[in-house]
């Protein structure tokens, strides 16, 4: 597959780099795993205009676990979708590593998602006709890349699916299905994993398992994870929590606890 050649990376040339906002990445910081700079996402037109993202600038550090929180309609899912190359900004730039994805065409964007980004969705994560094992290697197979069997075994063992690889998704529980999705995201060793409410449909025990695996991936393998959630408990697994409201970044919390998250959320709601 033809990888888009990433342009040489120079943080100093980033438009947002010299205009840091209160939580914006400082120019002195190391390379971001992903960055949204001065991003707008505007729906409708003129008087009926809705700004899902309203000039947001945010960066996700590598090998860290970042959670994005905010009330419904705050733009948290839109931010994730734009950052992950699933949707395009109305205005602004998105970087995955050094690549400015706003300059990529549809095909290049697709290939970039395939090569560099892992996804865990809330539901409809798996292809029902493929086995768990085939689902895990699906993005690699799409790209025609060879599966690193050692790494595959390690990931599968970590998420506890070793004896389930030949099962079809319909033969797995909801928690197991979500673990397959996490394994799929991990096995391709992406630059960054985006998880959109990965525990939204799970019971508390399965949720804890999934969050544990994501945390583990960051700690043990140096994986970068960005997770959108509305669950304060889930957010406590992150290193850093970003709070969005009305399409803007309004707050940030390092080393969150359930109480501190709830407090910030309460403040936002109030």
């Amino acid at each position, binding site marked *: 597959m033809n990888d888009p050649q990433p342009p040489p990376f120079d943080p100093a040339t980033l438009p947002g780099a010299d205009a840091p906002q209160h939580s914006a990445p400082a120019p002195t910081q190391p390379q971001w795993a992903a960055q949204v700079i001065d991003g707008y996402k505007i729906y409708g037109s003129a008087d009926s205009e809705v700004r899902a993202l309203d000039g947001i600038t945010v960066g996700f550090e590598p090998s860290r676990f970042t959670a994005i929180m905010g009330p419904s309609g705050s733009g948290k899912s839109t931010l994730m979708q734009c950052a992950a190359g699933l949707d395009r900004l109305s205005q602004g730039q998105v970087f995955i590593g050094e690549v400015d994805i706003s300059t990529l065409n549809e095909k290049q964007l697709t*290939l970039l*998602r395939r090569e560099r*980004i892992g996804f865990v969705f809330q539901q409809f994560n798996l*292809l029902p*006709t493929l086995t768990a094992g085939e689902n895990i290697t699906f*993005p690699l197979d*799409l790209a025609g890349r060879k599966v690193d069997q050692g790494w595959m075994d390690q990931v599968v063992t970590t998420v506890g699916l070793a004896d389930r690889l030949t099962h079809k998704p319909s033969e797995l529980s909801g928690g197991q299905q979500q673990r397959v999705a996490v394994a799929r995201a991990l096995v391709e060793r992406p630059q960054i994993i985006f998880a959109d409410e990965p525990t939204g449909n799970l019971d508390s025990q399965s949720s804890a398992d999934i969050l544990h695996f994501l945390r583990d991936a960051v700690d043990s393998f140096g994986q970068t994870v960005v997770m959108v959630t509305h669950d304060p408990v889930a957010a406590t697994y992150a290193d850093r929590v970003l709070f969005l409201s009305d399409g803007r970044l309004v707050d940030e919390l390092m080393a969150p606890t359930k109480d501190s998250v709830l407090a910030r959320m309460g403040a936002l709601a109030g």
Partner: protein
Amino acid sequence: MWNLTLRNLRANLARLVSTAVAVITGTAFVACGLVLTQAIASSVAGNVELQYSAVDAGVVSQGMTADGPGALEGVDAALLEPLEALPEVSGAAGELVASTKLLDSDGDALRSQMLGRSWITDSELNPFTVDEGRAPEAEGEIAVDRGTVDRFDISIGDDFDLATPAGPVEATVVGITSFGRSATVDGGGTVFLSPGYALEVLGAGSEQYTQILLRSDGPPGELVAAARDTLPTNVSVLDGEDFRTEATASTQEFVSFLRPVLLGFAFLALFVAGFVIYNTFTVVVTQRSRELALVRSIGGTPGQVRRSLLGEGLLLGLGASVIGLGIGMALSALLQWILQRFDVGLPGAGFALSGWTVLITVGSGTLITVVSVLIPAFKAGRTRPVEAMRESAVDHSGTSMLRLYAGGALLVIGVGALLFNRFVQAYPLLLAFGALTLFWGVVVGGPLLARLFGRAMRSLLSRNLTGRIAADNMVRNPKRTATTANALVIGLFLVTLVTVSGTALRDWAMDEVAKLSASDFLVVAVTPIPDDLVQAVENLDGVTAAAPVQTALVSDATGVTALLSGADIDLLVDTMGLEATSGSLDDVAAGAGAATTGFGQLSEQRPSGGPPGPSSSTTEVGPDPSEQPDPEVDGPTLDIGESGSTTSQADVGQVYLLENPAGEIVEVPVAAVLELQLDTIFLGTLVNQDLFTEIAGTQPVGQIYIRADQDRIDQVGTDLDNIVADYTGIEVVPGNFIGQILGSVIDFLIAAINGLLGLSVVIALVGIVNTMNLSIHERRRELGMVRALGMTVAQVRSMVRIEAFGIGVLGTLIGVGAGVFCGWVVIGSITEVSIPLAWGRVGIITAVGLLISVFASIWPARRSTRIDMLEAMAST
């Protein structure tokens, strides 16, 4: 619940459109078939009614009312005058019809099927009217129908060369005619000539009318009686009704044959459409199960859910059927227009929409739609709310084991029966049983076959991820895949079967025919062959022998008619190598008796009451068989038709009792039985010229058998063609022409049947596209997800394309495979001799099937990537 029904229809426009397309396509073809059949029937029957509406009595020759080459038999023109003199007759006209062609400046015919008619001067008997100019009154004047005039831009005063039975003539257009609301009754156009001129040119001097039409102001019964008294016994007088029935009889037969065939195809189209409709609704219900579950969970009873769906089916079926009816009518109008371009238009009545057409089309379309909804609707009603509210909206309904076993059993039984038929003993009933069982096995066992096929495809494509997923998707719902493919299976199965067995039948028949020797050329005519033409043929360079043959229809003591030929027997032996299997041809040449072909034209009726003679209306004229003068002679009769040939073999020593024009009985012993040859069936019963004259009087030459110098045979053929080119109704055919005619007739039938079957294949194409689009709609979340995970547009499309193509291939393979197999068994039943299968044609059919599969994959593939990724994933 009506409210819900209406809203459902409105809310899902795309779904509505795809289901409607299925119903519309099906009903349109049904309507088209019905309208065309109706048009043909009414064009034939309606025209005759109109054309002869004023006729109270018709005078025809006896030959006209029997099967056989009656065209040679007319009614003597001299009979018209005494009829006109009768007080009961208010109007009389001799009608003469013969092939005539208007030639352009290059000498080529403007229209190939044109007819010349004598202009009937009695305005009440004449159904034609003069629009412009005047009726033809003198020699060299013609009137032409409006259709021909408009099409070839003809004006009054134009001069034309005409090819007629009497050879080429020149004529001037003096009038333009029409027939009721249409141009004429003849599909190929009509040329009118004045009565006297028609006798000269159309009759080629035979002084005979085709028939005489009479009209009376008094009671028709008296007219018929009076006419009968005046006329000799060799002509029949029919009252108006019988006359019209007689006139439509041959064409009615054709229509009554055509009607079920056309209807059969129309219903086949509906049947295939039924598959598509049913399938579409199954998909729709599955896809909607969650929506329905919501209705259930807030208190809708299963009955209400069912009624809502049924209402939807009823509305959709009714609406789409009405649209289908309209499109079908447009389609048939288009077809008629195209046919007219090729000069095979339906003259006269045109096409009308009958109540039956509306009822059958809309009724069956609605019924099939409702029934198609009924089954999924019951399933929908049974869905438990909890079950359906879960996320997956994909149909997981498996295929019942019972169905798999039943399908498998039917397949095994069908194949077994057919194999038994081929290798052990052929029974037509077993053959039909086997073919039907195999067919139903394919339909019922479709999911099984789909699953096997999917598995094979998966292993074939195992190295290609998108291909593998596509193969898996195909068998996700084997029932649906099978139903979709079945629409294609039905069409291709029938096309293949017809082609394979039809081609084999043709080859076999041509081969059989080629074994018989024959003359090198044969001049055949539906009109008398003029003497100068006979001489021209005899004197032609390269012709080594030419045998003119006079023909006549004669009747025996029982009034049954058959073909009698008179010729110089020695010349016939020279030209066609005539031989006798028993008796002596020398005796025939000497006039001691007749030679019979043993082909059923003449046969002996056994005293025990063998094959009855055909129930011809001429029996009223002949004397009763019991009044035969010589009871010792086993009442030999003339018998027409194959039934006679198989049951009663002609034998030397039999005596035929034939009636001469004077009404006397002539005893003709059978002196020889001819060996069966290609040409002998055209001879009927053969006598020498003297005996012929004694039995039938002086008759014109109807056939000429020709032997040519073998080195110059091509040149002779060309010269002969040139000689007869100026005469219509006379043709030169090469010696083995029966084989060729047979071949081309069968070829035409195969093409015609396949053309009609092609409709069902087109519907099947719509079906595949429909099913795929619905599958895509159903799996849109999944498609969104794989796009997010990095499947490129090209990969998604190729995945969908492979799946659609796979369904098409499945249908093609099963359809063509089953067709070839059944065809192979049918061939084995026709003959012991092994005939090679028409693999070339099978290849073409397969290619068409695959091409359709490719077409079926294009649209869904495009559609699959038009889905908005995020929207698809967000929708719940």
